[in-house]
């Protein structure tokens, strides 16, 4: 295990940021800390980096107790949401910074920086100032700067949070490919479940200072440990007292089965290939999503009476069993 977090707690005044958190982060993998804003995930990352001190608990990095080490001695690379560029230094000197601190020979620094700039596709921008780069380029520079010192672990705090949607998508695919090349143990914080599901090998869901679930993207999506995880990782709707994903519901117009719930279509929204139907049953409004073809073959329209049921072998949480989770998520 590369990073071992044991019973870490952290308060800011009266606010509990982390409440007895224990996590093991495996070597060489890309791990996402996922959760809503203010849930404690950035605090945990900053504690790993030594930028914040835990009130109690221990942090081990590659078997070394790092709890009392200052950030300078931890050999971690840290990438910030807002780039944290050294504004007065050129791109080249930004990347060289960590190596200059370590007093490496000049020739070695130059070749290493060139190598890294090539890795992040910024070779032709070496002499520019950070202010002359776009957000995506600045973040790639920050990544190169963090990688320059060959860190034991690479920590990224909402690395794509300040970028627009298109660049964000490009960069996260690029990060995935980069990780496959470089293989450094990487932990990144995000509140975007799609980003975590797409990029990470393993996801740690953190909410209100506690770990809700740890697992692979498939585990989390298909077997959420509780309603919070289920709600946070994707859309949900309620049928009777069951919490399900809208795409795990089926509609048919045949004779009602005992497991079916009868309702009337009250609204149809089309988003590209996806059709979202709102069905009003006797006591609730259920959302069902279907593909365009499925929808057309049903031959229904707003006002039609239909039967709704959960597709077989689908996980569904009990919506009444854990009321607090639902209230928190809505």
């Amino acid at each position, binding site marked *: 295990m590369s990073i071992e977090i044991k019973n870490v707690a952290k308060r800011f005044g009266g606010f509990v940021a982390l409440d007895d958190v224990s996590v093991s982060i495996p070597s060489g993998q890309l791990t996402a800390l996922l959760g809503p804003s203010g849930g404690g995930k950035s605090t945990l990352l900053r504690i790993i*980096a*030594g*930028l914040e001190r835990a009130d109690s608990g221990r942090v081990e990095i590659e078997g070394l107790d790092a709890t009392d080490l*200052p*950030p*300078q001695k*931890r*050999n*971690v*690379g*840290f990438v*910030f949401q*807002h780039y*944290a*560029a*050294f*504004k*007065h*230094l050129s791109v080249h*000197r930004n990347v060289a*910074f*960590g190596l200059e*601190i*370590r007093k490496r020979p000049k020739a070695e620094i130059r070749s290493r920086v060139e190598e890294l700039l090539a890795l992040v596709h910024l070779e032709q921008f070496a002499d520019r100032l950070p202010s002359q780069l776009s957000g995506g380029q600045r973040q790639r520079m*920050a990544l190169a*700067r*963090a990688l*320059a*010192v060959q860190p034991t672990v690479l920590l990224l705090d909402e690395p794509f949070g300040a970028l627009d949607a298109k660049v964000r998508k490009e960069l996260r695919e690029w990060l995935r490919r980069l990780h496959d090349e470089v293989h450094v143990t990487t932990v990144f914080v995000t509140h975007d479940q799609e980003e975590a599901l797409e990029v990470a090998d393993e996801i740690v869901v953190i909410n209100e200072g506690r770990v809700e679930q740890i697992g692979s993207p498939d585990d989390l999506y298909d077997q959420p440990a509780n309603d919070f995880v289920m709600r946070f990782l994707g859309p949900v709707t309620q049928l009777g007292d069951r919490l399900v994903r809208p795409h795990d519901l089926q509609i048919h117009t045949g004779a009602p089965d005992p497991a079916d719930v009868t309702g009337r279509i009250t609204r149809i929204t089309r988003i590209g290939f996806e059709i979202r139907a709102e069905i009003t049953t006797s006591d609730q409004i259920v959302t069902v999503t279907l593909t365009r073809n499925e929808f057309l073959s049903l031959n229904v329209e707003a006002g039609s009476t239909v039967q709704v049921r959960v597709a077989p072998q689908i996980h569904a949480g009990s919506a009444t069993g854990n009321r607090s989770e639902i209230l928190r998520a809505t």
Partner: protein
Amino acid sequence: MLWFSLLVLIPLTAVIVTASGNGWVEFWRAVTNEQTAAAIQLTVGTAFLVTLVNIVMGTMIAWVLVRDERFFGKRALEVLIDIPFALPTIVAGLVLLSLYGPDSPLGVNIANTRVAVFLAFLFVTLPFVVRTVQPVLTELDREAEEAAASLGASRFTIFRRIILPSLTPAIAAGAALSFARGVSEYGSLVLLSGNLPMRTEVTSVRILSSIENDNLESAAAVAAVLLAISFVVIVAVDVIQRRVVRRG
């Protein structure tokens, strides 16, 4: 540009024209007059020293005001810093005289000495560096410092290579203001320094006495020299500032 010319360039030109009214020889005589040269030397030298003190102390005070969250007297200091700005200089002179004059309640009598000039300069120029550095320090990206720390930079290295280059333009601006203000100071020192020729007489006092003696050309000559020195200092400050920023 026209407005700028009317406001700044025309008066400056007028000073130079008046100064050269009697020709080069007279100009040179006025400037190299023993008493005048001593006044220029004292004023520029003291202003320079005071500016150096301000660069260090002003930056430190700004640092305490912005970064030290536990400092108890922060609010009070925040207000106190502006007093030299708000106080009419002659009032400041009176305050200094009653504090450090012959009847000093502190038992410190520096009246009629060069220390008085230094102290008066220091008093009126104190806010400049503080007030130019403070907003820049407030806006500084703390994450850049954290990034430098996780790359292995010690606190001193972070200050020297990350913080200082960002503050340098502000420090330079404050230093230039503080120097210019020192050179032109009159009110705050005129009471305490005694204006002793060759010892504690500063240029502004010298200029005034030249005018009172109906020697306008001599006054303008001294003014022209001060103008040239100020210009050189401003350019020098800018050059140094750029170099510090670039070196990083």
